[in-house]
């Protein structure tokens, strides 16, 4: 028996595996080629023109989808519910944001060499030797260093936290609470102005990315394409991982960790590796998110944002690979639409949706076809006489 025989589709789905490559290829072409062309090549005013604004919003959703894939890798594939994934998303964002801040140069409000917030917090007095720039900011002048930091910082923080947590066999709801505490503590830390990352306002008012004006439609298009490529790569990676022996152990840990442990596998190491991978994925998503939305601040690493990411996975269908992407894009698109068209009522709509999905679609949106099939099969023998319901006990 090959190990791939164990690779089960998510519970409830039929066997769409054969169709999936075509669907993915179609969506990839649509997202990577058609949409950018509709923005760049189709003239404005045409019915097929896609505005730069809309493309930018799509780019943001794609970054959220990357984050959701990371959450799913942990929760859906390994059974670790982390409520702190936005910490890593924000750390990646901050790492690139620091570079973007330094690239503003003299274009800020104070026309100084250092970012504006360092001027009004009087950093030149605190760090006179570097003209006001804290020492840990200096290497971020180099874009390569910043890109390495985008991966390395979430990885290191993830490894340190994961090592301590998994080594102590912290599991289930206790791990969830700890991860939430971690991101909350980080939020409070980043809120502090003395922490040298811009406090509550965070990092904003970027001017250029790698020398290109962030406000140009072509730059926005490039960032969108980069996000789409990243999402495709992360999707491919997650998909590939499920076909490996590693993926098999992942799911075994999810379904019964003790059995895996007693079979002689050091589950803590596997979990740590997955946790670090998820942190890196989140960091990469965050790094592309920041130049597209133009701001990163501590509220982006808040517990509520991390919970939202978990909700996307649940809505889309955790356990499957497409589900979290569908959930992240779907929920955010709905939010974008509703906060504009139903500004006063939208929280009710979204709340009702979440309740309906958890009650009626435990497998999320990707579970809908299987759900319909099971309902249909139940309806067919419905011709048989049904037993009368017993009266309720007094």
């Amino acid at each position, binding site marked *: 028996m090959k190990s791939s025989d164990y690779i089960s589709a998510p519970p409830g789905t039929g066997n769409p595996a054969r169709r999936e490559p075509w669907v993915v290829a179609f969506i990839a072409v649509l997202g990577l080629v058609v949409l950018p062309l509709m923005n760049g090549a189709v003239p404005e005013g045409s019915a097929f023109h896609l505005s730069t604004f809309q493309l930018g919003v799509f780019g*943001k959703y794609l970054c959220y989808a990357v984050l959701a894939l990371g959450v799913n890798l942990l929760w859906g594939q390994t059974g670790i519910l982390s409520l702190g994934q936005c910490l890593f998303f924000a750390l990646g964002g901050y790492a690139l944001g620091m570079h973007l801040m330094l690239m503003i140069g003299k274009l800020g409000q104070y026309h100084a060499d250092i970012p504006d917030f360092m001027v009004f917090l009087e950093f030149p007095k605190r760090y006179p030797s570097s003209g006001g720039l804290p020492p840990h900011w200096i290497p971020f002048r180099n874009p390569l260093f910043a890109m390495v930091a985008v991966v390395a910082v979430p990885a290191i923080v993830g490894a340190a936290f994961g090592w301590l947590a998994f080594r102590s066999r912290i599991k289930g709801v206790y791990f969830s609470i700890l991860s939430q505490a971690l991101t909350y503590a980080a939020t409070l830390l980043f809120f502090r102005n003395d922490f040298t990352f811009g*406090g509550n306002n*965070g990092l904003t*008012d970027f001017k250029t990315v790698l020398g290109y004006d962030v406000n140009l439609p072509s730059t926005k298009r490039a960032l969108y394409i980069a996000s789409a490529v990243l999402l495709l790569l992360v999707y491919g990676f997650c998909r590939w991982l499920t076909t490996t022996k590693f993926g098999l152990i992942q799911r075994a840990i999810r379904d019964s960790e003790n059995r895996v442990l007693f079979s002689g596998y050091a589950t803590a190491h596997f979990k740590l590796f997955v946790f670090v991978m998820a942190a890196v994925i989140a960091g990469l998503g965050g790094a592309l998110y920041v130049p597209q939305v133009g701001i990163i601040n501590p509220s*982006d690493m808040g517990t509520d944002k991390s919970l939202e990411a978990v909700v996307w996975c649940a809505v889309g269908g955790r356990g499957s690979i497409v589900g979290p992407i569908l959930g992240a894009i779907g929920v955010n698109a709905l939010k974008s639409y509703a906060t504009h068209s139903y500004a*006063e*009522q939208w929280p009710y709509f979204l709340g009702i949706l979440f309740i309906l999905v958890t009650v009626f679609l435990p497998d999320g949106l990707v579970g809908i076809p299987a759900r319909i099939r099971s309902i249909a099969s139940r309806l067919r023998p419905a011709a048989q006489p049904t037993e009368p319901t017993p009266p309720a006990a007094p």
Partner: protein
Amino acid sequence: MKPIPVKTIGAALLALFLGAARAADTVKVGVLHSLSGTMAISETSLKDVLLFTFDEINKAGGVKVGGKPYMIEPVVVDPASNWPLFAEKAEQLLVKDKVSVVFGCWTSVSRKSVLPVFERDNGLLFYPVQYEGEELSKNIFYTAEAVNQQAIPAVDYMLGEGKKKFYLLGSDYVYPRTTNKILKQYLKSKGIPDSDIEEIYTPFGHTDYQTIVASIKTFSGGGKACVISTLNGDTNVPFFKEFSNAGLTSENCPVVSFSISEDEFRGLPAKALAGHLGCWTYFMSIKSPENAKFVGDFQKWLLAPKVTGTDYTVAGVDPKGRVTCSPMNLSRMGVHLWKQAVEKADSFEVDKVRVALVGQKFKGPAGEVVMQENHHLVNTAFIGETLPTGQFKIIKTIKKVAGEPFSAKFLGAN
């Protein structure tokens, strides 16, 4: 939790179907205030007062351009206290809805988030909440109090009362930091030595003020001290409780708060703050015919909220226990100034309106305001004493204070 507004949802859906028919020409304006999330408690009031002002202007014949009246049609969005969403909604208003002007933002971080959007798409934003300054965008008009229209008059008043020691206490974010930095320089220029100025910050949501109040008690031993507070929102409750528990009063050590207005007292116990001071460019208790009309009309509008001349359905307005406050007054000032500028420029075009805005005057509830070349108002500053009812008794009026965003300029003048 508020009950689900079934009626308003129904009405909204109905309006959606009937929306096609419409009589007069309209001009779209954006309302960019959080209606959900942490800031909703403050910003919803600004949304309400903006809709009220649109109604007020529409009832009086709308905005006249090219000899034709245009009804103001609001486009209300909810950026949900989420700063990146602020930028997205701002761009949507400018690019998709093509609004002529946007009224919005409360926190500095939300303004910082949308500033690049307004500059890129050449939009127009009116910002109505006291802030730290050190910013000037050609696309933003700040009807808000600058530091020299709120903090400096308050400190001047305290100096006049014979106070010699200043305890600067704030939440740790950019507004308190910048304000206190400016105040320290200002106090030094008035001959207050460094040793008589204390500067302390507490994180958001901080509740344990025992140590801080103890240090204030020691600091205020001689009776010559006061506290300048830029504490934000909920943290005021534990602070003032601890303050009065320690035997400190407005007699032996008054507190001037910059972030508490009448609207905040809807959620804070005013009794604990009674006797302490506030400083704004508007108080609900101002006695003027313009203010009586503003407060009266607004209260009436709340009972049957609508925007005359448009098919916009007003939803989510709570008429119970409503008050007016400075950010609300300044929101309304912004709409009137914009309307006058549009009529002067005879165009809705941002570049023309921007030019016409400078020099616009409006006689508001707190006296006449003038829009200056630096996009800030000449306004009247008031010092008020908090009453147990959550209102302020005006104890000092400082007329014609010209707002100046850059501290280097007004500090240099002293």
